[in-house]
């Protein structure tokens, strides 16, 4: 595995009014690495990953993604967003567009790809997420699991170097979770760099290189999954793991 860091966060802090959502967070992700982030709600894990493509602006510290510093410069933001795909908890598919249009919009407008090329690519990724036959439907006609797989395909159509997942299975019915996780495991197997906020600890065990536990805006623990689950160093991590692994 290449050891070049593709994401670096140094002392990143962020406030919402008086509330400090991120407290001097450090994070390094190497090319091809899979990082799973977990923690109680309100711990800042979503805020952190949303800072990586500047859906949220950090106020202190330095974030470097793919060699570019994320500051107020809009050209940097556009360049980084084109390289970083994001999958949301609520899918956020465009409901007024067909599945195919959802997938071709980014490549055509942000990458200047021709309609024919973009459609070819869209069909390719729809097949990869195993719903090739739904191209002409509208998102509202699909199940939650199918919608989330379309959302993953939509991000992949941009040929990103990094994929961010913000609780991708939290809005899904239990029987649909595995179909989305399967696609993500497959993606991980192909060497995609991934940062995944999730409570699916089975997924973390299977694919993560590093598991990060966040609480109250801080990174409390970062370790390979074996060490993380077998011998957590922090009491806070242990308490959290007891709660989510007990059932």
């Amino acid at each position, binding site marked *: 595995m290449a050891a070049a860091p593709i994401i670096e966060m140094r002392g990143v802090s962020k406030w919402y009014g008086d509330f400090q959502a991120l407290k001097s967070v450090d994070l390094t992700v190497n090319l091809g690495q899979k990082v799973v982030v977990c923690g109680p709600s309100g711990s800042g894990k979503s805020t952190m990953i949303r800072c990586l493509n500047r*859906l949220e602006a950090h106020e202190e510290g330095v974030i470097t993604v793919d060699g570019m510093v994320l500051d107020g410069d809009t050209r940097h933001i*556009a360049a980084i967003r084109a390289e970083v795909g*994001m999958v949301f908890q609520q899918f956020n598919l465009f409901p007024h567009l067909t599945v195919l249009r959802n997938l071709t919009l980014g490549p055509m407008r942000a990458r200047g790809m021709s309609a024919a090329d973009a459609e070819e690519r869209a069909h390719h990724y729809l097949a990869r997420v195993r719903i090739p036959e739904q191209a002409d439907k509208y998102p509202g006609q699909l199940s939650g699991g199918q919608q989330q797989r379309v959302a993953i395909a939509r991000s992949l159509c941009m040929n990103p170097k990094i994929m961010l997942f913000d609780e991708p299975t939290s809005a899904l019915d239990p029987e649909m979770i595995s179909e989305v996780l399967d696609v993500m495991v497959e993606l991980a197997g192909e060497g995609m760099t991934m940062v995944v906020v999730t409570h699916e600890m089975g997924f973390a065990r299977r694919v993560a290189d590093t598991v990060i536990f966040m609480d109250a805006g801080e990174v409390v623990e970062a370790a390979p999954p074996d060490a993380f689950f077998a011998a957590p160093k922090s009491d806070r991590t242990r308490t959290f793991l007891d709660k989510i692994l007990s059932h």
Partner: protein
Amino acid sequence: MTRSRNHFLIVGLALVLAGCSGNWGWYVISPETASGRTNLRFLLLGFELTILLSLLAMVAASLAGLVIALLGLYGNRTGRVVNRVYVEFFRAIPVLVMILWVHYGLPVVVGISLPPFWSGVIALALAESPFIAEVFRAGIQSVDRGQGEAADSLGLTWRDKMRYVIVPQAIRRVLPALGNQFVYMLKMSALVSIIGAQELTRRANELVVAEYRPLEIYTFLILEYLVLVMIASAGVRWLENRMGGADGRPVLARRQGWFARRAAARQKGEP
């Protein structure tokens, strides 16, 4: 079904009785006499300008309203101030005053005198645009935040995000409100008669002066507007059906209209 038929009977009877009572003189626009036909034709030709006035003003007001709404929502400080001042200022001017000012005041300022029709289009568009701006603002704000975030995360520019993601969804949501505003516009266009554009109301006024039959001519004028507004409402409903519901997805099952319900009732053997 019988109840609505009773309504028709009562209205029809009232009209027939009124027409026969001697107080009405429908001869003035009777299609059976040559002069009646000339008068009728004169009145009906007003549809052209009323429709053109309303449509052009509505299109112009919608474009201006969209720009003003976007300035208010996404502009810098100056943009937001422009939005507020524009909306408050033009919302405060009575439509009639706006028409008079544009037609008689504006030429003094810019040195070009506009024909009544174009003065009317400009004045109606200016008067309507702040209301449409507010409609669009509400519509754009109602689109889920995640939609904009998804567009951002794909690397779309702000313009593309608006054009392909946000505005299309907003327009679908505000279509009923825009339809409402269009009906207002059709009715407001009557005010342009004051500066002499030969639309429905102007023609009715001119014929009343010539024929001294205000009751019949103005009643006919009411019916003319009624027909226009009904057609406009049906058009808006058709658009809504075609473009889809609030979630933006096309409505697959067509909403049943009056004729469809009648046909279904007849098939079931009801009267």
